[in-house]
């Protein structure tokens, strides 16, 4: 049923796993980017609302774009043929 975990994966599933890592790291990355404007206040005169607004909306669009890119590689759901997907049908059988 579940194949013994092999040390090396084929290219596609390797890529998928790394994209899973990226999906986990993306919110951290976004948090850091969104905290950066807090540093701009201390500067003499400070930043203007318009600058920060443009920055934040830029980051927002970037994050949405990255999320779309990353989620395109991720397979969801039990039918996706991932490890949990293979387990499913055999449970259904006898039940």
């Amino acid at each position, binding site marked *: *049923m*579940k*194949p*013994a975990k092999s040390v090396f994966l084929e290219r596609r599933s390797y890529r998928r796993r790394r994209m*899973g890592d990226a*999906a*986990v790291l*993306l*919110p951290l990355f*976004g*948090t850091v980017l*969104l*905290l950066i*404007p*807090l540093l*701009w*206040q201390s500067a003499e005169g*400070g*930043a*203007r*609302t*318009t*600058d*920060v*607004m443009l920055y*934040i*909306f830029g980051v*927002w*669009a970037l*994050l*949405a*774009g*990255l*999320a*779309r890119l990353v*989620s*395109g590689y*991720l397979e*969801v*759901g*039990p039918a996706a043929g991932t490890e*949990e997907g293979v*387990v*499913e049908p055999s*449970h259904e059988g006898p*039940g």
Partner: protein
Amino acid sequence: MATLKLLIAVSIVYVVFLFCVAFAADRAARQGRGAWLRSPLIYTLSLSIYCTAWTFYGAVGFAARSGLEYLTIYLGPTLVMIGWWWSLRKLVRIGRAQRITSIADMISSRYGKSNLLAVIVTLIAVIGTTPYIALQLQSVSLSFAAFAETERGLVDAGAVQDTALYVALGLVVFTILFGTRNLDANERHHGVVIAIALEAIVKLLALLAVGVFVVWGLSDGIVHTLERIDASQIADWEVSPSRWTGLTLVSAAAFLCLPRMFQVMVVENEDEGHLRTASWAFPVYLMLISLFVVPIAAVGLEVMPTGANPDLFVLKLPLLAGQEGLAILSFLGGFSSATSMVVVAAIALSTMVSNHIVMPIWLRATGGTATISGDVRQVALLARRLSIAGIVLLGYVYFSLSGGGTALAAIGLVAFVGVSQFLPALMGGLFWRGATRTGALAGLCTGFVVWLYCLFLPSFGPGVLLPQSVFDAGPLGLGWLRPYALFGAEGMDSVVHAVMWSLLLNTAAFIIGSILSFPSPMERLQGAQFVNVFEHSRTAGSWSGGMAQSEDLLIMSQRIMGAREAQALFADMARRQGLSGYLPEPSPEFLERLERELSGSVGAATAHAMISQIIGRAAVSVEDLLAVADETAQIMEYSSQLEAKSEEQARTARQLREANKLLTQLSLQKDEFLSQVSHELRTPMTSIRAFSEILRDTSELGPEAQQKYSSIIHDESRRLTRLLDDLLDLSVLESGKVTLNTQSGRLGDMLDRAVAATSGDPGLHIIRETAQEDVWLTTDHDRLAQVFINLIANARKYCDAPEPRLTIQPRMQDGRLVVDFSDNGSGIAMADHGLIFEKFSRIGETKTSGAGLGLAICREIMARLGGTISYLPGQKGATFRVVLPVETRLAAQ
């Protein structure tokens, strides 16, 4: 007056349209035509109930008061959405696997289906949501009043209240109509979902339209708008870092924990794959919603008279500019935001209230059994409908009592902090198996109390619910307990202060409580299934019962699920079990499925309680826990079994290959043997034929010649007979059909016999050690003697020494009898050692006749007698060693 009438007309048309759309969607889904209803886009749009009237009107007000800070409310959910892979995906998977009906159900299920937890979560949710509903009602009535104001001047408060009441009543009707059509809360409310998706589009378009109007209508494009922002009161980037991070955190937490968000995100989720689209599409939606907020706020601050409520800029800017169409669109946007929130919140809360508060009380009040008379289904539906009406009207009461003042506007954040208290128990339960019910209870209660005391009660202002003295000096003069400066943490923003303390103490209590307590078996069972939901998406069997109870179960299920559905379920399960009729065996699988189906209607805790009342077993045994552990073990075992099987197959294949090789070899040997036999037979036959022809055809043969020829014929036929005898003997021996004539005797006697039988040629001198020969054997004497005769005859035939000598030397070695026959000849060449025991093998040039079967026969005989015969290399001459097992000897003694 015309505008107001138009507004009323448009609103009514809009509401009727929404009813129609919801009705059509429900019908389409019922008839199975609603594939498009289940698209990821609809799912994403339904998530937008996060953006309520608080967003639609409040964001601009928020921005007008504190600049870009309003963005935090949308950045938090954005971060949660793009991190869907490790949080939301799990939440949704569990929600679907366990048929979760609400966030209270989720938390209660995780911690052993504890109804107490569900009740606490429900209470917090109701307390946190009611003011929020009031806020929605207020926004609708205020926006309506704004229209009326421009027509007739000031509007009295009574009219505002009336509007709110009508709106509330309309919402109750809509929600009851489309939200409680079916009891199974886990079934999708297609009508509701499609209506809120439509409203999501309307509110986005309305806000974008107002934004575009402000930027390109009231200003001269983007550059000019940016200049106006720079010139406004909110030009400077002055955000408190603690509020920026604190509010982002709270909004992220609330996004996960708000009952209405949980409803659309998890309960109404149709397909996990929809999250993939929502992960980027929803952030985009939030971004578009907040895109024009700052421009609207800046322009509004500049254009509107001082003291105007910035919360209504979205509506009043178009009105001021005389854009009545745009103003009506804007009103519809705000109306949509408010109504969709109220509808979903009411559905979510009513499910919680009826499942976790009303139903358990009703069950207890009616005698504690589910089998007594009374239609549970109708009771549950009624409970839910009454809850909806109760919750919405509670919001209305709250609104009228609070007087619709600005205090209500602040309630948005207060509610966020309140529901965020679910976060530790929810997330901890998802990722930490050690989280226990005690910990969750401790955390929730701590967080709830701190929130009430530090944020909720003070939010009404000094002297309303908390006296002024408590604000100044703390309760009973305890300064360190002042609500805005708990434990001496002074000078903090009140919201950040409450967020910090409530979540900190909540998490601490949750962790400490979990570490110090011991979970019940049910908790551990559920914990394992939640945390490891991706490993096994199935609940383990935890019920056992007798056939007599199936009927009771059917009676109960019919009351809850409806007769048709229950009968269909029971018949299906019976069919799966191979039974006919409607009563399946109450197997663990069946009870488990039934519980899951029922929990879709009345929540996990109630469903569990009802089934256990009938089955008579509420607790989970250690065996059940072991079963869960077993499931994983079984999977692993199965895979290792497969591995073993494939190994076995490989082994079998290998054996088959070997057998095939052997068969091929045997076939070759047989062919070779046949050709050998024919050859051996032909040689004597040829000479017999030749000499008999001479005897027949030659008449003048002398008697001597006649004598000579006929004796040749005789010799050859004897040889032929001997050969055939040997062959026969060998074949009998090889086939194992030989019967041994076992008897007891002395080794010396057998040797004597063998020597006597071969004493025809005196040329061979035999040396024996008679002292060693005094050994008793129980064996086939004739056969053993045959071996000895053969060995002696071989020595006689092949020993090439001038004075041939054969030494027969018996001795005991390792408990076996070993007899060596060694001659003083030149021995056998190394290369021939492997061949001498094969059939028809004759070494070197033969000076005597012999078919080469002797040693082959010896080997077979020795094998039958349980011993061996082998050639012993490295001696002076040829040495054959006969080994007999000691058992034969012992048996003789």
